[in-house]
């Protein structure tokens, strides 16, 4: 299809896009003791370039202590047929400050610059929301899950921005009985949005007290929304199978009703779909066993901090941040996930303390997959306070980014021996990298209407 808006006509067309030659990842100093701003790092990912696998520019945000975390594009394939839109700006929120940084990545893709900051105090005053997390564009509009009210209490809500990055207000008409917010994804052809649950900012920001899970301070439900009416219509109680359900991924195929969420603490993958009676159903399709640790009284859960689907919806990837492995499952039959690949880096079980000459502190955490499904980029830091609890050496070692080559035909994964970005060697001292995106879109940005 000939068109001139951003993105691609379909997931199949997205898979034909040129290889990503630049990577953007956020890097934080929050919680490290280094009194410098967090920043967006640009990494040269052209194998023929002399600066391949190096940070080539750093766009600092104005403040200190924002805790940059997730980010999203101002536009994606959801406005593919809108010639007035372009994938130009990354919205990069600070979870702690609630400031939302708008970074221009198109004027000079190798050297992004700060375009605008939406002041967190202004967001709190106008919407009584704080702690921005996931960003999805929605045609020309932008919605952001906000995990708390202005005082950091759950459940928060959704911030609505227009395409000029002005605060419109609250997006949702009702939060229903939802207790917590976190991630969300929508599938417009089924008029549905699914949201998941972490905890209140006042609960998760200071760090993870395991005991608070039993006191119901963390989530164990997912929520199905009437997307047009902007209100939740059905909640699914996942119980012990679904403790702390985090990343939500629908199939990229806009006609599909299948989706998945990773329950971090239960270390399970939950699959949902609409049955022949138009009822939403769910089931557990992956269960990662807890591992005993020789010196600890409590067995260690995998802590599935992220999941991701390949653009063709064939493979599901997950990270066990505490165990230290990344897994690839063939989900061609979404009811029946087959383990097809596994690699190790870092983690608490000591399986791969060093990779490509760099000591991996932390475990595999955020991942981003190339549009063609062949290269998976992995970073190691989760959240500053949680890093400090589980991997205290990250303060001096910093985080790192690695690349995993994925076999899209037969399944299988292998860590690329020639790619490593050591954020322990940054000019201002060791920083920690988190979510990654690239200029042409990726496997967690684009949604088709």
């Amino acid at each position: 299809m000939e068109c001139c808006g951003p993105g691609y006509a379909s997931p199949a067309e997205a898979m034909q896009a040129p290889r990503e030659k630049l990577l953007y990842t956020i890097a934080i100093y929050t919680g490290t003791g280094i009194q410098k701003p967090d920043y967006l790092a640009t990494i040269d990912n052209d194998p023929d370039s002399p600066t391949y696998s190096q940070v080539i520019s750093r766009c600092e945000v104005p403040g200190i202590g924002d805790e940059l975390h997730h980010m999203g594009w101002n536009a994606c394939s959801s406005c593919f047929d809108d010639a007035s839109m372009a994938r130009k700006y990354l919205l990069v929120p600070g979870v702690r400050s609630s400031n939302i940084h708008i970074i221009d990545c198109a004027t000079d893709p190798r050297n992004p610059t700060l375009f605008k900051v939406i002041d967190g105090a202004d967001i709190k005053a106008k919407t009584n929301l704080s702690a921005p997390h996931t960003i999805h564009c929605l045609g020309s509009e932008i919605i952001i899950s906000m995990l708390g009210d202005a005082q950091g209490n759950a459940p928060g809500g959704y911030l609505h921005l227009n395409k000029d990055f002005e605060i419109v207000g609250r997006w949702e008409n009702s939060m229903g009985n939802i207790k917590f917010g976190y991630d969300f994804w929508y599938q417009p052809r089924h008029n549905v949005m699914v949201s998941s649950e972490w905890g209140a900012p006042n609960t998760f920001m200071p760090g993870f007290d395991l005991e608070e899970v039993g006191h119901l301070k963390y989530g164990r439900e997912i929520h199905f929304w009437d997307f047009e009416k902007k209100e939740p219509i059905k909640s699914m109680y996942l119980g012990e199978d679904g403790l702390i359900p985090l990343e939500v991924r629908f199939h990229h195929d806009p006609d599909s009703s299948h989706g998945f969420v990773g329950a971090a603490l239960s270390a399970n993958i939950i699959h949902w779909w609409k049955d022949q009676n138009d009822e939403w159903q769910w089931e557990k399709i992956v269960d990662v066993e807890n591992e005993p640790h020789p010196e600890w009284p409590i067995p260690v859960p995998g802590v599935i901090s992220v999941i991701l689907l390949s653009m063709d919806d064939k493979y599901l990837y997950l990270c066990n941040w505490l165990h230290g492995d990344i897994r690839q499952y063939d989900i061609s039959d979404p009811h029946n996930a087959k383990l097809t690949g596994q690699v190790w880096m870092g983690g608490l079980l000591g399986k791969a303390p060093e990779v490509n000459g760099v000591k991996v502190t932390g475990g595999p955490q955020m991942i981003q997959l190339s549009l063609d499904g062949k290269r998976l980029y992995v970073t190691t830091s989760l959240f500053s306070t949680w890093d400090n609890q589980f991997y205290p050496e990250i303060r001096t070692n910093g985080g790192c980014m690695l690349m995993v080559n994925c076999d899209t035909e037969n399944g299988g994964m292998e860590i690329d021996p020639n790619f490593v970005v050591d954020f322990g060697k940054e000019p201002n001292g060791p920083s920690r990298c988190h979510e990654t995106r690239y200029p042409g879109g990726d496997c967690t940005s684009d949604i088709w209407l």
Partner: protein
Amino acid sequence: MMHKITLANRDGATYEVDHRKPLLDSLRDQGVDLPYGCKYGGCITCAAKLTDGRVNQAPQVALNNRQITDGYVILCVARPLSDCTLEIGVESHDKLYRNPFLDPLAPHELKADIATKLEKAP
């Protein structure tokens, strides 16, 4: 009323601060470089260790009871009730972070809203 704040891990530097203002604001206004995040007492980024003196940090919701027992205070909401000695920055965070699988909390060590009262020995 003014109180004297001594920063033990900054060569014992001292600052006069107003008892009505949060310590984070008073110290930053006088040029002390301090980490902070949310500024409402919820995120723990600005935690410091109080080794002498008293503060009122009633608005804080970030610390569990073990962290409070270990002397941690949340500077963005803590106001001094006396002269105080503090250790600041992440160097003071040695006991702030704890692996919950290695070192669980007892019921009385949870955050105030869910902690059970510790039975006092007769």
